[in-house]
């Protein structure tokens, strides 16, 4: 249910802000919701929860591995913990703890990475996560979510709280274009078809969903009918929607703010290899970025609607 499929999408809240506010709402509804943070509450926006529930916010200091493991202990004692930090830190410094203490025993911990991708901007590569989806998808038992906007993030956080099992949610720093109206409904593992189309499918996640919608408008002007799928659930992947897209449109472009060699693109290619093989082009990151404004970086690193349009033309040319 897109609010707007015209070229200009209005900016909504950042997905990290939607996370923080939803977490505070959940805190009011369920006393078992507890939160761990690693000296970034004002950035991850767990500060909203911290203000209302200081006794249930565990500030772990700059010690992500300990934070993840403390969260696992809280979960094993019956709490519903959300632990949060920049994606770049919680997924890398906490990975071994996520593997052994969370994924392997299937512990009910929720991990929310913020400031994902290069759209964190000025802070530069050490703070930019380009591999967090790869790491999260490498963990059995984990559900992996990458919502595109405020409304879908609220759903993702609420879904995670209600779900029994580990979840990773990827969120971002900048304000995100509003894709959905507040009444939109989502289903775990089900892609949302935002724009119908017959010639090519643009498969996008996170911030790139808005770019895919813009690209479909640009392609329409060229007479190309581009379907847009929002993959808010990276794992489990909606293989059925992808197979249908491959069958009905014959070519796909996958767009993500992540390394192309290990993110949504390879998962889509794997899914199609075992269902309906079709040509696919990949829009994403291939190298470490640099400092700059989010807009400058998205332009420079090729994560914009015109980049999707070029990839769409290329993949359509490959159709048999």
């Amino acid at each position: 249910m897109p609010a707007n499929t015209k070229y200009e999408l209005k900016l909504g809240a950042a997905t990290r802000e939607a996370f923080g506010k939803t977490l505070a709402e959940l805190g009011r509804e369920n006393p078992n919701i507890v939160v761990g943070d690693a000296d970034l509450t004002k950035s991850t926006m767990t500060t909203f929860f911290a203000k209302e529930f200081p006794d249930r916010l565990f500030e772990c200091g700059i010690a992500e591995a300990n934070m993840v493991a403390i969260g696992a202990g809280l979960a094993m004692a019956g709490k519903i913990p959300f632990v949060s930090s920049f994606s770049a830190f919680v997924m890398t410094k906490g990975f071994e703890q996520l593997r052994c203490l969370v994924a392997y025993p299937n512990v009910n911990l929720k991990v929310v990475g913020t400031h994902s991708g290069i759209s964190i901007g000025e802070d530069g590569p050490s703070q930019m996560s380009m591999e967090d989806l790869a790491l999260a998808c490498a963990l059995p038992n984990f559900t992996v979510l990458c919502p595109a906007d405020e409304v879908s993030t609220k759903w993702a956080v609420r879904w995670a709280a209600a779900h029994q099992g580990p979840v990773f949610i990827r969120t971002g720093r900048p304000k995100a274009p509003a894709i959905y109206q507040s009444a939109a409904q989502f289903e775990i593992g089900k892609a949302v078809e935002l724009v119908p189309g017959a010639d090519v499918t643009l498969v996008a996640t996170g911030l790139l969903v808005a770019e895919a919608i813009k690209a479909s408008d640009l392609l329409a002007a060229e007479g190309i009918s581009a379907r847009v799928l929002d993959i808010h659930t990276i794992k489990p992947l909606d293989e059925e929607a992808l197979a249908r897209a491959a069958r009905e449109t014959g070519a796909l472009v996958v767009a993500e703010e992540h390394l192309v060699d290990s993110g949504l693109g390879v998962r889509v290619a794997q899914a199609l290899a075992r269902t309906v093989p079709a040509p696919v082009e990949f829009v994403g990151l291939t190298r470490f970025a640099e400092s700059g404004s989010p807009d400058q970086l998205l332009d420079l690193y090729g994560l914009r609607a015109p980049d999707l349009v070029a990839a769409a033309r290329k993949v359509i040319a490959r159709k048999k």
Partner: protein
Amino acid sequence: MHRISNPTDLAVICRQIRRHIITMTGAAKSGHPGGSLSAVEVLVTLYWDVLRHDPSNPKWPLRDRFILSKGHAAPVLYAVMAECGYTPVESLNTLRKLGSIYQGHPDIRYIPALEASTGSLGEGLSLALGMGLAARLDRSPSRTYVMLGDGEIQEGQIWEAAMFGSFNKVDNVCAIVDYNKLQLDGAVKDILELEPLAAKWRAFGWHTLQIDGHDIPAVQSALSEAAATKGKPTCIIAHTVKGKGVSFMEGDPKWHGVTPNPEEVELALKELA
């Protein structure tokens, strides 16, 4: 569980646990007998005299918890849990075999009564602190005990957790270091020295005790001092002997990860008769 506090009675149980460790690891032909034998008195005292637990109701919400952070010492934990009635004694010798509930390292998928799956070193103290925080939020009397290996505390996460535990006054958590002075590659002092160990824990804000970890009354008294200590967590440094109870295993790093052959099993069992 029926509490046993008499040190002589506990020593009898310790002997039985050691026999299990020898036969289990002998049958498995792989595993970690040395660091299992060093931990026997601490675990037996915990499970028979200290922990509030009920083998017929392992998920009793108010129970005390024990985490074997040095998960490779699984044989001692399995033997203790089996003798307590959590799991069958008769299948202890399936240790490490395909399909056995007695997996190479403690695995909660196979033994739900375990408090944690462990094996990757350095993580159990944080887990225990998380459980301690949950108990505090719930105003539960539950206490959490966690055994750390000496080599294990070379892991950085232990010290992240140590800082966190004292700063947050998680006084319902007690760490016990099985200080047997040996790790896989040799003596701890030659691999990466921990001393001054008690001073380190004190500097990190823990109420710190040093005991002979094979002296049952000393273990009992340290554990009750830990329970009585408020405002900070307690660390008990239990000085132990790797391979304790079997003359040819004591103090020899070889027995960290090597198991006794049938002749050695027989010899060891004679000593433990």
